[in-house]
């Protein structure tokens, strides 16, 4: 085999994916050809760098389970703030009426319309931020 043929087979040789008979031919050539041997060294170096690169990409990411959607991650802060605001609102309501309101669930009805918030599946509210930590909650439907 010529150098050109060997060059092509170097990746398979380095990954041990060649048939035994071809592998032996490549091996014999590499022993006697410094040029091809250098390419094998380069191939190994590239493998190391590929692994390092992909590891680096993966290492930079914090994959959380079972967080479902990116939207939730992005809005986590806002949701927390809204929850407090909504809770305060209902607390003030319950004080006036004398009853106790318990909020079981608070969720966005749509990721697009960010200021529309559903509480306990049946109360739909519109939240408007008027100042730092101050929100106006308008009940649209209940």
């Amino acid at each position, binding site marked *: 085999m010529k150098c050109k043929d060997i*060059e*092509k*087979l*170097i*990746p*398979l040789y380095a*990954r041990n*994916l060649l048939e035994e008979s071809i592998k032996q031919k490549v091996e014999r050539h590499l022993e006697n050809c410094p040029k091809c041997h*250098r*390419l094998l*060294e*380069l*191939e190994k*170096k*590239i*493998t190391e*760098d*590929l*692994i*390092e*690169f*992909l*590891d*680096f*990409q*993966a*290492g*930079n*990411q914090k*994959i*959380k*389970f*079972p*967080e*479902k959607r*990116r939207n939730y991650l992005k809005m986590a802060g806002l949701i927390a703030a809204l929850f407090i605001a909504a809770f305060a609102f209902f607390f003030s309501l319950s004080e006036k009426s004398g009853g106790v309101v318990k909020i079981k669930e608070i969720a966005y009805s749509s990721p697009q319309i960010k200021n529309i918030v559903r509480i306990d599946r049946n109360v739909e509210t519109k939240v408007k931020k008027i100042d730092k930590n101050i929100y106006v909650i308008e009940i649209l439907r209940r």
Partner: protein
Amino acid sequence: MEEYSDLSTEYGFNRFVKETEKMLYSFAYSITLNNEDAKDAVQEAYLRLFKARQRVDYRKNPKAYVFQIVKNVCFDIIGKRKNEKTIENLPVEEKFDRDTIIDRKKIISSALKILNKQERMVVCLLIFDGFSSKEAGEILGLSDSTIRNHYMNGRNKIRNFIVKHYPEYARSI
């Protein structure tokens, strides 16, 4: 390969995630070439696996199964995105910096972009030694010989690209 027969338990599942997430993420990245998309795909894949954990026989090969899921999720993401052209056939930058300091990550990143999706996936699955060429074929639905071909072509493209555009990288070894 490890046995994951206890995948139905919370401990077993978490251990499985811990052991596979880095490689799974790398694989997702090799398809999307985008960190955010890769992250989304991996999360979605584990979620699907978690939901289906009682139904599927994972003892067979749960690792291959989750890689199949992530592949499908990545293809969905790419399909939905309008600017797909920016990923496939991405034009390689004309200017190559001849910096004295070799930025290996940058070189590898540009080299990966010249491969097609199939080649990138195969290269990624095989460089980590986690899968045999037969298993990689199972995940991608390709024959063993096609896998070897993609690997050979992909790796040769990368090496030739580096020799041509970054001779200082090749010299540095």
